[in-house]
Every structure is written in structure tokens, then in C-alpha cells.
């Protein structure tokens, strides 16, 4: 089956979710692994990450660890609710 093309917001959501999971699994997040799992070339992933940092959704912790901020967690929560609403409305492509 052909995979649906993701828009920018969906990509940001995927990155934030993966970063959250990474920070739970290991003490140090690995950007290369996150980029790979988010299905993005590294340069594009870096651009998205810079934007997420600019939006204060991700911050660099001690030793350069990527941390999802409370604003990022809020976005994940809100996005999941909206996706659930769209699914209930039968509007997910």
C-alpha cells in the first residue's frame, strides 16, 4: 500500500514522539537514530530540530542531550487528541 506523504506538522509530531521515547529509554538521545526512525535524511532532520528548538519545543540539556520541553509535550498531547477527533469523524486520509 502506498504510504501517505506526511506534512510538516506530522513530521514534527513524529520527531517529538521519538525524542520522548528516546529520553525514556536511554540517558543520551542519539539524533542519528531518531532521524532514521523518523524516516528523514539527516540534514532535513537537523533543520526540523533547529525549528523545534526555535519554537521552544525541544531544548538541549546537559551534555547536549535533546529534551522535549513541556511545550513540546503539550503539542504531542494536543495533536494526538486532534488525530483521535479526526479519526472519529472519519476524516483521516
Amino acid at each position, binding site marked *: 500500500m502506498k504510504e*501517505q*506523504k506526511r*506534512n*510538516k*506538522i506530522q513530521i514534527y509530531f513524529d520527531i517529538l514522539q521519538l525524542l520522548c521515547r528516546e529520553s525514556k529509554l536511554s540517558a543520551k538521545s542519539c539524533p542519528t537514530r531518531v532521524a532514521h526512525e523518523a524516516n528523514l535524511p539527516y540534514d532535513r532532520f537537523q533543520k526540523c530540530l533547529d525549528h523545534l528548538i526555535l519554537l521552544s519545543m525541544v531544548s538541549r540539556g546537559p551534555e547536549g542531550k535533546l529534551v522535549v520541553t513541556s511545550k513540546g509535550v503539550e503539542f504531542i498531547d*494536543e*495533536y494526538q*487528541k*486532534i488525530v*483521535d*477527533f*479526526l*479519526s*472519529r*469523524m*472519519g*476524516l*483521516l*486520509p
Partner: protein
Amino acid sequence: MSVEALIASEFISAALALILVYFFFRTYRLTRSIYLLGLPFGFSFLAFSYVFLGMSLIYEKNVAISESFLWLRLITQSFGFAFVAFAYYFSSKSEKTTKYSFGLISLVSIISILLFFGALAVAPPCMELPSVNVTDEYFRVMNLFFLGYVIYYLVKHFEPSHRAISGLIWAPLAFSFLWLAQYSSLIWGIDGSQTAFVLAHVARLASLILFIRIYYLSRRA
């Protein structure tokens, strides 16, 4: 039903539709999927149509004003349902839907509304225009077609494997109530049945409440 109750029903429906506009616009703002704009547009038109019907009832003693509001109601309601149907149609083609294609549809819709009312305004007095009640029946058939398409789409894309059936049943049910409201209004227009008239109002209010319930169910999930 008394006129006061009817007016109240129209304005309550408009308020509920405006709440839905806010919910759907919030959804669009977060996802930025252009096809989702059909829903806030559609429900805005529906809210206006309920207000216009309420206004026509308030001014029912002045036939000219009352009929003007009824014409406005007719057009805005059909555009509302058309926009909702567009949203569902484009949701399966979201990759091909650009802001230009949606903008074009909106522009064509607005121009056609303006042309329609322009034609009504410049039509010579000798030209017999069909009465608003007769035209209403044709528009209702069109509305039934739009809502029928949405219900067909929802049933066709019904995938219970994705989640519990209880979570998926509300949207088709809400649209079925909207369909029933239009159908009952059509029956009332044909034979003047009071049961159909009351059912049309109850079904419409029930459908709008159901849409709001769907939103709250997803917030709670």
C-alpha cells in the same frame, strides 16, 4: 410548535454550529491540512442559515423581508452542506489538495452566490421567479445528496479494526440525523405534516449535539 419555540430552536442551532466552527477551525490550525477547512466553512454557512431562518420568523409579518431571509437561508444551507461534503471528498485526496484548489472552490462558491443574488436583483419584475417554498424543495434534494455522499463515504471507510466500533459510530449517526432533518423538512414542505416538522428540528439539534459530543469524547480519550 409556537413561533417563539421555532426562533429559539434556530438560534440554539446557530450557537451549536458556531461552537463546531471553533472546534473544526482549531483542528485545522493544528494540522494545517487544507481539506479540513471545508468543515469550519461548512458549519459557518449552516450557522448563518439557521440565523436567517430565525430572522425570517421574526419578520414573518413583513413578507418581502421574510422571503429575502428565506432565500438567504436556502443558499447558505446548501453551501454549508456542499463544503462539508467537499471536506470528505478531499480527505481521501489530501495529497493532491493544495491551498489553491481549495481557494478556487471557495472563490467559485462565493462568486456563484453573488451571481445568484445579482440575478435575483436585476431580474425584470415581469419575470416570474419560482416561489421560495418551491425552490426550497429542490435545494433540500440537493442537501440530501450532499449528506448522502458523506454518509456513504463514512460507511465505505468504516474500519472497526482501527478502534472500538463505539468510537466510530457517532459521526455516521450525527450525519444520519442531519439527513433525517432535511428529509423531514422535505416531507413537511410537500404534505405539511406536523410530525415531520417537529422531527426535522429535533433531528437537527440532536445531530449538532452529537458532533459536539464526538469532540469531547476525543478530548477525554
